[in-house]
């Protein structure tokens, strides 16, 4: 009996110690999420954008975030829309940010604000599309003209014989007048004009109307298209759904953008001919590194081209 009690006491003391350690750890693990870890020594960046919901933005901001963490800096995102660009710029000037990454659908129209920033001692780089007339320090992005040319080339390869090409422009090409939009379309046109059997018949923007509706409209057109170039992965998924619903799969070849799982799946199932992959993440990453180097006074190239890739069945290992 004595030994049983002693064993019981020992077991309880052991259980108490273990339980105490577990509970203590739980108490300590119940630490709150750190809201921010800012300090005066860290660089403070502002990302100003008019698009915070697209696939391109998600990838871009992912790249920014990774680079910011690596450089132990902080950043904040200002969305132009509810607040005017002017107000946003004034705020970043008052709050004395160290650098601004400007990512608008048409950076060229923000030249004046870019110059205000520079006047306020804030370094600024543009991404996605350039503002060549401004005092921006660096432009980082893909060459949209070449991108357009490549898209058109892929469209030619997709269909034999005469080709009627349609284009649905996504989040990056909201502004019809932006340099990026113009360069992309001009790139396509360059190839189209050089091929007699090629015709660019439709250009549509998905920023105001959903891609499904645009696709429905396209299908109702008198002169049906053979190939559709789509610049947004989200739009691609929507378009494919319409084609499946309308039993038009194979009638219209699709040249997509992006490397999402759905797009890869579409390529595997031959719903998509090819996909052009702009490395938005790399753009976000490089924008932070270049801005950091500019702030530190290092000499950097004022134009940084980020190359794009092509996803096809052959490089997915299917063929």
């Amino acid at each position, binding site marked *: 009996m004595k030994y049983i009690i002693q064993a019981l*006491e020992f077991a*309880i003391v052991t259980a108490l110690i273990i339980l105490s350690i577990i*509970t203590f750890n739980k108490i300590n693990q*119940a630490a*709150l999420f750190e809201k921010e870890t800012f300090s005066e020594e860290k660089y403070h960046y502002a990302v100003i954008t008019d698009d915070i919901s697209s696939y391109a933005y998600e990838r871009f901001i992912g790249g920014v975030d990774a680079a910011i963490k690596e450089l132990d800096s902080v950043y904040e995102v200002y969305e132009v829309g509810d607040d005017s660009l002017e107000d946003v710029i004034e705020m970043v000037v*008052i709050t004395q940010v160290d650098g601004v990454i400007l990512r608008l659908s048409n950076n060229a129209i923000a030249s004046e604000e870019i110059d205000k920033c520079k006047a306020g001692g804030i370094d600024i780089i543009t991404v996605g599309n350039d503002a060549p007339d401004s005092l921006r320090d660096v432009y980082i992005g893909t060459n949209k003209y070449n991108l357009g040319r490549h898209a058109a080339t892929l469209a030619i390869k997709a269909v034999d014989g005469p080709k009627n090409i349609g284009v649905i422009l996504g989040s990056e090409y909201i502004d019809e007048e932006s340099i990026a939009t113009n360069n992309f379309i001009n790139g396509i046109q360059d190839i189209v004009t050089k091929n007699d059997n090629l015709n660019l018949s439709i250009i549509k923007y998905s920023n105001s109307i959903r891609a499904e509706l645009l696709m429905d409209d396209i299908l109702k057109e008198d002169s049906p298209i053979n190939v559709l170039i789509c610049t947004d992965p989200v739009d691609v998924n929507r378009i494919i759904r319409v084609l499946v619903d309308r039993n038009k799969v194979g009638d219209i070849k699709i040249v997509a953008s992006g490397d999402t799982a759905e797009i890869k799946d579409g390529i595997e199932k031959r719903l998509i001919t090819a996909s052009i992959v702009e490395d938005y993440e790399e753009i976000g990453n490089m924008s932070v590194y270049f801005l950091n180097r500019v702030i530190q006074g290092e000499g950097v190239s004022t134009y940084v081209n980020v190359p794009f890739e092509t996803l096809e069945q052959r490089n997915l290992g299917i063929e």
Partner: protein
Amino acid sequence: MKRLKNLLFHNTLKRKVFTFMLVILLCFLTGFVYTFYATFKVNKQINEMFTTSIMLNEMNEEMDQFETNLEAYLASKNSDSFVQYLNYYNLLADRASAIIDTDSIYSSSLQMQNIGKLLNAYLDASENAIEYKRGRNTEGYLASYTNLLKISSYIDLKVSNLERMDFKVNLQNYMILTEKFDEIQLGLVVIVALLIVLSILFVFTFSTNVTGPIEALSKQAEDIAKGKYHFEREKGNHFKEAELLRDTFYDMASHIQEYISELRDKVETENKLRVSETEKLKMQNSLNQAELMALQSQINPHFLFNTLNAGVQLAIIEDAERTGNFLEVLSTLFRYNIQSLQNKVKLSDEFSNAKKYYALMQVRFGEQFSFIFDLDEQVTDIEMPPLILQPLLENALIHGFKNKTEAGVIEVKAYATTNGVKIEITDNGEGIPFHDLEKLNRGDFRKMSERGGHTTGLGLGNVYDRLNHFFEAEGIMIFESKINEFTRVIISLPRKDDTTC
């Protein structure tokens, strides 16, 4: 100091109680501190979640009051409004400093730093508006005031962004805290429950430790009271007082046991002494009786002895040689007979006396009986009580041939054995019936002793007792017999030394 040392370093009951209370107290104190720590930590984290929100809310209210008073001053130059404006200005300036201060709790919050900077710009704009107002520059103060309102809207925007972000984080934190707190609470409940169980076990162990040795000693005390002195000694490392009690108890028990043992030995010795005394008294009584009988018988022998001497002298005078010899033998026999029974005689003396007795009996009975004597030369000097053989011969003569007409032969033989000397008196008489023989061998001579008249008066019982007392041994004399064939008395004298068996 000494008492403290005793308390700390000696395994005393006091220390045991002290340690027990301390352990229980520590258990519950630990549980309490633990619970307090958990509650404190969670409470602190909950407070932290809302500290910023409370501060920003206060700042917004101050900004509203600030703007109202500034507007009033700008509109009417009201000095009260200006005083109020200054008050709020100071309050907001302090807040801005507190926010931007690198040591403040907001120094790690980018959004709070932005708000601090915007607040400074906001206050600067108000100063500009006041300056322009004083300089009567209407456009200037209106522009500054408009700028102030714009910055105010920026601050609102930042506050709203911050609160939105904070709410998101706080919500996550709240969820974590709620989940963790439930687990922690469960853990604490289990800890408290285990502490209670442990305390109960401690109390049980403690009470067993304290009362255990006392209970064991009580049981052993009961055993001692019942006369059981042999018990297993309690072992184990108890507290000092219990050990002292135990050792003292065992010492006491041991002393009692020794005392009782001594008492028992004493009683046994006394009993033995008493038995010995009784035996001695019995012996003395027998001797006295024998001596009394001898004295009684000495009256005649002395008279006869003197008379016989006179007869011997008369026979010599008258040349009656045979009668003279007879009377001389008779006289010698009487002389031997009247000696004290406490004397020691040699076996040869006993044989000599027996032969004299035979000589007398020959005169009386003629050829009817014949005695054969065979004495080993080695045992002639053996000492023994007197008058042993004669009563046995008398007994054989009287009882052995009472109803027998044939000539009787009585053989008296003594020889050495490995353990001593054996004397055998064998007659070819009528024998002794079996039940009488058994009685004789058991030492029951009552019937035999009662018979008298023709003998010395010393019965078999007397002979038997004297032999036993002399040699301090039992079974010295045994009887063998076969009806109509023989009766043999065997006396085994144990060897004592060279002369005495």
